[in-house]
């Protein structure tokens, strides 16, 4: 057989990947910024996050449109097809992740006049892990490394543990002193958003595993402690 060039399809695939990576790094930095805004009481950082969320929304539409166009015009099959399907799913996940970061930013803006309930320790830790997961999920995506993706999924347990710990702690604040309720609830919302970010990062990993191996897995059953929040 003679090697054939597929200039258009290869270019389309490269563009799709670029956009996913761009969305990924934006989500990472938005999450980091939102938690820093909370910790350092910096409303302008929170406002930046809110503006960036709009860019991520647009990128998601771009990815979806490009994916549909490529399927319609290039008739991709096998791993090409899987990559496109995975990328469009990842774009949706990333868009939702940006929403969660944006959710944290909103809380910061809303509560900027109140002092923090307590020095933050576990929330920045959650953020650190979630950002690391997102980063490595995208590494796995670029390197087409299913094992790395699976390893990242496992880290979500730690995020869930931290969330439960924060929940317990905040509940004890609220039950001891009802005047802390509104500030404690704000922190709880923040933690909840971070917990969701961790879930979505594991979804990214699922899509990477699919793109690389063709294996679709049932999402890990989630035992979310407070399902109605968020």
């Amino acid at each position, binding site marked *: 057989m003679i090697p*054939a060039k597929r200039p258009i399809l290869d270019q389309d695939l490269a563009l799709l990947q670029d956009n996913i990576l761009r969305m990924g790094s934006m989500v990472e930095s938005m999450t980091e910024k939102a938690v820093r805004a909370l910790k350092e009481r910096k409303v302008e950082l929170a406002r930046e996050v809110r503006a960036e969320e709009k860019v991520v929304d647009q990128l998601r539409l771009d990815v979806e449109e490009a994916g549909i166009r490529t399927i319609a015009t290039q*008739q991709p099959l096998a791993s090409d097809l899987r990559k496109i399907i995975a990328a469009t799913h990842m774009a949706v996940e990333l868009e939702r992740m940006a929403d969660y970061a944006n959710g944290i930013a909103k809380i910061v803006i809303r509560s900027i006049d109140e002092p923090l309930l307590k020095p933050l320790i576990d929330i920045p830790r959650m953020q650190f892990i979630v950002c690391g997961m997102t980063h490595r999920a995208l590494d796995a995506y670029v390197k087409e490394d299913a094992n790395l993706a699976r390893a990242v999924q496992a880290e979500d347990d730690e995020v869930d543990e931290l969330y439960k710990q924060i929940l317990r702690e905040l509940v004890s604040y609220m039950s001891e002193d009802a005047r802390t309720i509104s500030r404690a609830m704000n922190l709880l919302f923040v933690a909840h958003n971070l917990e969701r970010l961790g879930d979505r990062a594991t979804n990214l990993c699922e899509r990477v595993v699919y793109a690389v191996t063709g294996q679709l897995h049932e999402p890990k059953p989630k035992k979310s402690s407070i399902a109605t929040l968020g």
Partner: protein
Amino acid sequence: MLAENASIFYGAFRAVADVTLPVHERQITAIIGPSGCGKSTLLRAFNRMNDLVQSARVEGKILLDGDNIYAPDVDAVAVRRRVGMVFQRPNPFPKPIYDNVAYGVRLGNPRIPKPELDAIVEQSLRGAALWDEVKDKLKESGTALSGGQQQRLCIARAIAVQPDVLLMDEPCSALDPIATIKIEELMQTLKERYTIMIVTHNMQQAARASDYTVMMMMRPDRAGEMIEFDQTEQIFTNPRDKRTEDYVSGRFG
């Protein structure tokens, strides 16, 4: 049908090497692979069409209902009645539409009563989804039809003798997209009664229209071999063999 270690030669040249392939009943099996890898040769072996080539020879077995169609006592014409063939270019006879369909039936049964033959012709044309388009002009020449209609006429001709298996060698390569879709739809109805094998260069067609797919490739000695056989969905979403992946995604051609 079942090919067991089938090798097909033209003189000393081995065009197909050692194919073992189960053809599932009442399913559509597509054969894909680069040009010259032996797809047509393999397909033709399933109804002894290669017998018409002087130098051609088959080793191994091809079984129809458990019997080797290449056994010495088997009549090739009888095999072809049970395993029909539709070719790449529609090839109706320059005769009335009616006679095109009746042709094989008359050969097998020269004294068939007219009403019975009428019924078979109608049934076959209906089976090929052509009846409504030609019922008022059965006396007109088959060659006066459009390409897609001609191909459906050839399918009607093939099913008129009530075969068990239909072989199609690139049946749509000379047709426009609409006529192609019509043939593919027709294949879906035909598979309720017939086992179908189709050779196609059109990956989308194989993906759309078949249940199983055979991927063939040429070895360095130019003999064609089967490198992968699986459910069509598997071949086009997650093939096992890197060469299949490269072929279906257009990295080689």
